[in-house]
């Protein structure tokens, strides 16, 4: 069949309406069915030309968008002439890997303490001839020196050797890890427990496991560094409230609720982040009020009890027990094994959902080797001791000691020193009295005033060491004023004010603590002679705001 004859009837028909060039019709004729298709188009055109035009344009537009390559902004590298680029490469001169030591950093280095024996009540410090009374080790109940603990460690070493040689997921789950998790869950009366191999990685992993970009965290300004890192890693929106200020917390929660109403937001995960006993202040969180607010506004609660465990609460479960708060009220309860439990690591207790999720998403759990087995048996043994002795002996003893210490500071150091801690807290922060403080508010301290005040404090602790009492200045990472630190989209809250930190244990007795405070007062009076009477004048340098990138 010839092409012309096949095209004949249709072509005649079409020419009536619109002109179709001959070569098109003859070409179409070679494709089977094409003619019918052309007819169909022409019919469409006849019936509703506007419709056809609009639709064709739309189809073409969609095709254009689909086929268009993503418009690539030409980068600087491509636009720069090669010679200029080469010059930039040649001229690039990086800053040194680490900046020169600042004054604050040098003080931390020079003030380091080297222990020559075990960190027991009396210990031997390098450079001091006699033994010193240890008020630094956070082994609040003195478990680290107990025979039972040493026996547990020894037996575990004999049975398991030292390391576990693998993460929990990959044959690093030794039976004693599982036992410890059961012991902790039983102790706290929760469904389950997850043990991390380091205390600080617990909060750092637990927060980002549950809170992500779309979620919201309301955080106390004074939380410790591990929590700040966790908050930062979570990428959540962060709001800070003033330290232990419940009105401010209520204000923040109220503000969020109003925002909700205005923006008609979909539900997001929201946590109030607090510490039971603040590491940096030694004061107690008013947890009953926090829980009240949490329930009122339907938030969740993250609680870090690292420094209150074994000390607060009738059976040593921490500040939550002290306030009589049910464990079910606390969604994420993390604590440390390296304080009262005289071991290494951290843990999170809670519902099965909370724990099982962290086993997959807690980065510090999933991607780190598990702790050596003997560490777990030590912690298990510590729980046994705590269960049998806390209520009757240890908790009252440590509480009494803490109160003795605080009372002695108030009585003996009147006018020179103040404590900022809770009178029952085994972790006591002692500051210079307001008349010697170089700034009023933590936020008012800059690098120079902080260093000047810390210098006096370090002089005090140094003299105390020589006099036979070991206490240390609370160390913080002091960055130059020019560095602006951020958390989420906020400025990072100011560092806590300079202080000397004491760890009071159940092992100390009244005489020792009184003597320690007497030494503290004596050394303070000596050191205050060199204390600057007013804040040093800081040379104001232009501040560089470094943009936070993710």
């Amino acid at each position, binding site marked *: 069949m010839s092409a012309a004859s096949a095209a004949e009837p249709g072509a005649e028909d079409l020419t009536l309406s619109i002109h179709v060039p001959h070569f098109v019709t003859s070409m179409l004729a070679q494709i089977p069915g094409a003619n019918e298709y052309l007819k169909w188009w022409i019919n469409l055109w006849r019936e509703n030309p506007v419709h056809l035009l609009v639709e064709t344009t739309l189809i073409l537009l969609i095709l254009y968008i689909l086929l268009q390559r993503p418009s690539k902004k030409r*980068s600087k590298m491509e636009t720069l002439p090669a010679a200029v680029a080469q010059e*930039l490469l040649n001229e690039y001169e990086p800053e040194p890997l*680490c900046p020169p030591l600042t004054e604050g950093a040098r003080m931390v280095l020079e003030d380091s303490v*080297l222990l020559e024996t075990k960190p027991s009540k009396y210990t031997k410090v390098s450079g001091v001839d006699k033994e010193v009374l240890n008020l630094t080790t956070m082994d609040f109940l003195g478990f680290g020196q107990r025979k039972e603990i*040493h026996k547990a460690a020894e037996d575990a070493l004999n049975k398991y050797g030292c390391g576990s040689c693998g993460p929990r997921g990959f044959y690093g789950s030794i039976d004693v890890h599982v036992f410890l998790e059961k012991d902790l869950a039983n102790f706290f009366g929760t469904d389950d427990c997850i043990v991390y191999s380091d205390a600080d990685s617990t909060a750092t992993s637990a927060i980002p496991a549950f809170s992500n970009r779309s979620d919201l965290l309301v955080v106390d300004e004074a939380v410790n560094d591990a929590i700040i890192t966790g908050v930062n890693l979570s990428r959540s929106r962060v709001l800070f409230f003033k330290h232990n200020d419940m009105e401010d917390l209520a204000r923040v929660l109220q503000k969020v609720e109003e925002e909700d109403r205005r923006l008609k937001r979909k539900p997001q995960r929201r946590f109030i982040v607090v510490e039971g006993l603040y590491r940096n202040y030694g004061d107690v969180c008013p947890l009953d009020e926090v829980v009240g607010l949490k329930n009122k506004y339907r938030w969740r609660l993250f609680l870090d009890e690292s420094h209150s465990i074994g000390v607060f609460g009738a059976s040593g479960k921490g500040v939550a027990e002290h306030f009589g708060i049910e464990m079910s009220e606390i969604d994420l309860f993390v604590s440390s094994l390296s304080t009262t439990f005289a071991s290494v690591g951290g843990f999170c207790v809670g519902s099965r959902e909370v724990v099982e999720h962290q086993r997959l998403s807690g980065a510090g759990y999933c991607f780190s080797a598990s702790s050596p087995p003997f560490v777990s048996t030590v912690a298990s043994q510590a729980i046994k001791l705590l269960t049998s002795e806390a209520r009757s002996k240890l908790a009252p003893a440590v509480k009494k000691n803490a109160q003795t210490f605080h009372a002695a500071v108030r009585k003996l150091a009147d006018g020179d020193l103040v404590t900022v801690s809770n009178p029952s807290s085994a972790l006591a922060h002692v500051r210079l009295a307001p008349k010697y403080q170089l700034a009023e508010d933590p936020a008012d301290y800059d690098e120079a005033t902080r260093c000047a005040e810390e210098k006096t404090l370090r002089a005090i602790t140094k003299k105390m060491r020589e006099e036979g009492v070991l206490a240390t200045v609370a160390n913080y990472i002091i960055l130059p004023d020019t560095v602006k630190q951020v958390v989420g989209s906020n400025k990072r809250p100011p560092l806590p004010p300079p202080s000397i930190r004491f760890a009071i244990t159940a092992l100390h007795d009244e005489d020792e603590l009184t003597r320690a405070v007497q030494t503290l007062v004596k050394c303070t009076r000596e050191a205050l002679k060199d204390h600057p009477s007013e804040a040093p004048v800081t040379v104001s340098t232009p501040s560089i705001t470094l943009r936070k*990138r993710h």
Partner: protein
Amino acid sequence: MGKGGGRELPHDAEDQSIFTAITTYLGIAVIFFFGRLRDKFGTITGRSRFRDELLPKHANEAPLLDPYGAAFYARRIKFRVQDCFFRPVRGRPGTYIDVMKQTIDEDGIRLKTTGEVQACLNLGSYNYLGFADDWDATCGECVHGALRKYGPASCSAQSDAGTMNVHRKLEQVVADFVGKPAAVIFSMGYNTNQLVLPAIANAGSLIISDKLNHVSIVNGCRASGAKVIAFKHNNVDDLERTVRKAIIEGRGEADEPYQPWNKIIIAVEGIYSMEGEICDLRAIVDVAKKYKCYTYVDEAHSIGALGKTGRGVCEHTGVSPDEVDILMGTFSKSFNGMGGYIAGSRELIDHLRSRCAGMLYSSSLSPVVAEQVLTAFRIISGEDGTDIGRERLQAIKDNANYFRAGLKEIGCSVLGDDDSPVVPVMLFHYAKISAFSREALARRLAVVVVGAPAVPLYGSRVRFCLSAAHTREDLSIALAEIAEIARDLGIRYTRSAFG
């Protein structure tokens, strides 16, 4: 083992045939489809073992876990393979390991141990130098001594009262061993990366990180606030391109005036733990030097396992330790301990001692563990007056190469380089993870299988970790068993596209 998607597979793993690719994705689709179907069924009828999870609790509150993300994954994927991970063991992680048998709990969701154990050949633990096997003879005495002398833990940060003689000694030994002027030690290897990177990089810095770097490095980079650019895994050309581009463009946007990075840090690992590949350090260091970048090498798996005298990837690739700015490593593998170290210039170490959260806030390494690591170092470097260290380093190399060659002969798609004690074999299919693991356990082989999220969804693999304590006979038996498993499961991908 970075998390999540967007990752690139090492070159060997790309040898996946079309057939494998299609069936792998199909497998994942089936898992998701039926998972969602069962969720739907459970929600409507309430007949599901997960009904407590499926029914909403608070109307106003967002669920704690994303119902279509984490919760779905745990319910429909992890649940089906949970017996292959987190297997509890009893006793030491030596050449033979007692794996505890598990059965499903009454609630039908979790596993519980039955009380029985099964002795398996351990091809999963990082017991590279075999210290877990003869711990009493090699390390026991010293470690017990340290326990008596220092107690089990320090309960204090290093900058407070957490530094003991044994810590100082260990720092010096580490520095001498790796060939750097000074070193600091941390109580956790993961934290070493996560806390040190923020101390050296800030918002004006750039970290150029290998795409397959460990999560700890990734999180350290994120916590530092520095800009992070990933380069193609172990690809020096791409690294150089990235570095050039970064220097030329600076840190401003295209329309801003030129602002150079205050420093550029290239972060790589010595041996990549999920790929078994050894880093091309020579070339990377050359690029770094050419463009004045700093180098950060994570030797978690290579220190004490690679190189003639166990000094890690520097020794293996012929790079002088002076050429690398920051050497990081962990003690939980070859040294049978725990924790990590950073070695570098004296200025860097002083900086870290006074500025790093790991020094100022975290509790220090347990003195008992520090003594363990110290003893292991003495043995490895031959200071104990024996040949044990040298022999073990030779043994692990021989074992790794023998095993790798054996697997290749079977026809498995083996990743990684010779001499690396980490030997991964590609499985590709998600479903083959559990099949391989269970088959191996039935044949008394304890192996590590890896699936998402540690590797990409389509990058499932089994990973063998060799030890100096494995005998040739152990490995021959294991290879024979694996050959049968490989035949049954169809993972001999180098023989045929169909496995």
